């Protein structure tokens, strides 16, 4: 319990610190004057930086919670929205949405893309009995295929947002449709709360299908619900930030080490730590080579890649999957 409170404090802290990180410097002392006044800085702070921080938190928390749920469903600690290709599917959905000029409904397109990808992954992996690392290989391949489609669509449409959409493939928070935030925030909050109430079900799922069924679970319904929940979270995240990789892999793993493996703890911890992680990573992306910004996906990709590598290399001592 103490550790959860600590994590909550970290999450809050990251939100506050991130307010002061950016191309224009704002010191904590100035903050008070700024908020009471009505300068350009106040507009920047409330209209641009605050929504961006919230979006960052939502994306990080959503991807981490989705990762934890997918890992339990597939009994595979390497599973997450990115490694399974869900994010890729979602980004393709978004590109279609942009081409059709449906800015408000981007999260819906994104969700449909993620669902389609999830259907492909589950269908193929069941038919060919993929598991462990092979499943992730399948996801990576799907990601490549989806991003080729995205690039193809962008190339032929000659959309004026080409440059921006390109960043969508890497994961970027510098521009996102604010309307999408209004749709994504409640969906993501609702799904997270629902999953939290399902934490024992996820515990049981992770024991294997036979054990889960004889503990009284209706497997079909449980699996369907979990798939929809993970796709909703992924869809909302990708609609805000594009494809941010590895967050859903790193965060639940760290949370399990910190708090333990029951999903009640894993989900709560992933929500807090995941949100904080991405807010922090995005802050870093804003100040690392000031005044230039780098896409946050570059940062999570770098650290996530290293983390994945360390899991692979550390396998010999303690098997990770």
């Amino acid at each position, binding site marked *: 319990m103490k550790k959860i409170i600590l994590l909550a404090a970290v999450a809050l802290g990251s939100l506050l610190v991130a307010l002061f990180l950016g191309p224009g410097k704002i010191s904590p002392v100035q903050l008070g004057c700024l908020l009471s006044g009505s300068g350009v800085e106040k507009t920047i702070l409330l209209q641009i930086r605050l929504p961006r921080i919230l979006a960052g938190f939502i994306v990080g928390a959503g991807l981490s919670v989705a990762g934890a749920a997918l*890992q*339990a469903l597939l*009994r*595979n*600690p390497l599973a997450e929205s990115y490694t399974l290709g869900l994010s890729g599917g979602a980004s393709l959905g978004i590109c279609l949405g942009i081409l059709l000029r449906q800015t408000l409904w981007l999260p819906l397109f994104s969700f449909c893309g993620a669902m389609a990808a999830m259907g492909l992954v589950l269908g193929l992996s069941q038919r060919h009995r993929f598991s462990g690392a092979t499943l992730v290989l399948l996801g990576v391949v799907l990601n490549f295929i989806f991003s080729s489609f995205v690039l193809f669509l962008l190339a032929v449409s000659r959309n004026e947002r080409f440059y921006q959409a390109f960043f969508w493939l890497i994961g970027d928070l510098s521009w996102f449709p604010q309307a999408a935030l209004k749709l994504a925030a409640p969906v993501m909050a609702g799904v997270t709360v629902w999953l939290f*109430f*399902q934490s*024992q*079900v996820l*515990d*049981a799922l*992770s*024991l*294997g299908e*036979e*054990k889960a*069924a*004889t*503990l*009284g*679970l*209706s497997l079909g319904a449980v699996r369907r619900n979990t798939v929809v929940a993970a796709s909703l979270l992924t869809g909302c995240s990708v609609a805000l930030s594009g494809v941010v990789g590895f967050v859903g892999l790193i965060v639940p793993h760290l949370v*399990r080490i910190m708090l*333990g*493996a*029951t999903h*009640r703890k894993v989900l709560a911890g992933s929500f807090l730590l995941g949100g904080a992680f991405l807010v922090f990573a995005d802050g870093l992306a804003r100040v690392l080579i000031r005044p230039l910004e780098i896409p946050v996906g570059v940062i999570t990709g770098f650290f996530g890649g290293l983390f994945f590598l360390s899991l692979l290399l550390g396998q010999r001592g*303690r098997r990770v*999957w």
Partner: protein
Amino acid sequence: MTEKTDFSRVILSAEEVTGGYGQKTVIDRCSFNLEEGEFLGIIGPNGSGKTTLVRLLTGLLKPFSGRIYYRGRLLSRIPPVELARQVAFLPASVETTFPFTVKEFVALGRLPFSPFWRPPPEGEAVVRESLELVDAAALAEVSVREISEGERQRVFLAQALAQKPRLLVLDEPTAHLDIGHQLSVMDLLRMMNQRQGLTLVCVLHDLNLSADYCERLMLLNEGRIFATGPPEEVLQPEIIEAVYRGRVLRGRSPATGRPHLFGQPRAG
């Protein structure tokens, strides 16, 4: 080989049950009754349908035809949660993907009794009792990924016992275990059977182990019940040789006095 069946004590009954996967029939028209308090061993060669039969009996697999009754009610009509409060199943493999502590792992056995939004209630005491039964109380806070194979099997058993079942079905609970752990698992099962009246159905690969512990054996061959009865009657060289296609000699265990079979190598 048929004994009088006391129908008021029948806990599980199969009538002409046929089942399998997709187009493939694995279990072919099996009928039998299981009485409360029995310790039934299911034996048979590889591929004879032992695992499929227990999957049918636990409701994991729907039969193609025939009926299975649990205490007079059609198995397929009993809601999963209600069934889970009375029947526990220990499959051949339980997965330990995530580092649950032993205690958390065993507590999952209380799941059928707890509303979904809360961790298992009065569970604490039951969980502790189950851990003590399998002699794993000292492991309570250790991760299930860091204990030995033998310890893990005992922990799986504790999880099933935490369900407080009337009927416990086990699929090869002694596979991959050394003789010491085999004995400790089987001793525990017999103790639960005799002291608490737990009804047991246990798939076993080792014929001699089944002879030492089970009161009744059911020998499967190619999806059909080939013989059923006390070990004394089922473990006869003619029967075993017809099913397993290998020469065996019969002797007796100096430890239990039960019949034991010894494989006879070909001369040469």
